[in-house]
């Protein structure tokens, strides 16, 4: 069996229909457990007080904002190379989810930044590249709506996704390139010295798993809608021609 079998819309609908309830259940379990653990059962941090509880939202959302764009780049390349419609439609389906995660990252970062840095916003390399990523998401969604022919829209948005990957990459690694700005380094690290304390680590991992699963569940749901919408417009076009 080849992975390309799932590029067949009928096969995708069958498989995603079976997976969706399980992924949704796991998403709810991870998010509820992770957020309850993090919010109610972890102590305040010495330096940040109770604002440390925001990491359970901010870190997974920011990670998924970048990962969603990475997924869109991969599926866009598959569309450009192999012309599988499901691939292009899944990239289209992922964009509003990625935009929502980016907004969560920006909003929670701004709310946290006000008491900690004394400002809602700073033109820091990481913050700025993250804002540009949000604008790329908006542009990507607008481009899909603006072009009437779906294949042309898929071509143009695929190129935009590849160009925007520069900012997705920068928003992740900007702190390493420019050793300046307000935003601190990575919260999670393989280096035990740099990684956050164990007491926050496990609930944060659960929340990250919850956000990843939420993304998967929503991509499956929205891709199914896109496939149905594509079939609907094909049937209506046939009706008009008859």
């Amino acid at each position, binding site marked *: 069996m080849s992975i390309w079998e799932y590029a067949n819309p009928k096969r995708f609908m069958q498989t995603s229909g079976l997976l969706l309830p399980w992924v949704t259940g796991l998403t709810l379990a991870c998010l509820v457990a992770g957020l309850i653990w993090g919010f109610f059962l972890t102590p305040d941090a010495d330096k940040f007080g109770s604002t440390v509880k925001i990491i359970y939202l901010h870190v997974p959302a920011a990670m998924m904002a970048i990962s969603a764009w990475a997924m869109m780049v991969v599926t866009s390349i598959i569309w450009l190379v192999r012309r599988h419609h499901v691939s292009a439609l899944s990239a289209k389906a992922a964009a509003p989810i990625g935009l929502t995660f980016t907004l969560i990252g920006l909003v929670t970062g701004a709310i946290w930044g006000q008491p900690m840095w004394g400002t809602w916003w700073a033109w820091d390399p990481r913050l700025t590249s993250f804002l540009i990523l949000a604008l790329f998401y908006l542009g990507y969604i607008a481009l899909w709506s603006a072009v009437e022919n779906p294949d042309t829209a898929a071509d143009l948005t695929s190129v935009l996704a590849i160009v925007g990957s520069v900012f997705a990459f920068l928003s992740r690694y900007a702190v390493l390139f420019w050793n300046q700005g307000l935003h601190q380094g990575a919260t999670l690290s393989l280096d035990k010295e740099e990684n956050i304390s164990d007491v926050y680590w496990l609930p944060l991992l659960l929340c990250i798993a919850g956000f990843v699963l939420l993304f998967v569940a929503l991509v499956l749901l929205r891709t199914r*809608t896109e496939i149905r919408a594509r079939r609907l417009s094909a049937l209506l076009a046939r009706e008009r021609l008859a």
Partner: protein
Amino acid sequence: MIPDLGKYAGVVMWSYIATIALIAALVVLSLWQGAKVKRQLREVEERQGRDHG
């Protein structure tokens, strides 16, 4: 019982409220769009099935 969040209670609560509101809006919109398209497709398929049946 909500833990004592001290002087940062507003900051923490607003972060959670904003995040839950954004995710809820996305989920509701996705479900609504999905249900709408599914209903429209079923109607067109039934109509075309009758016309060709």
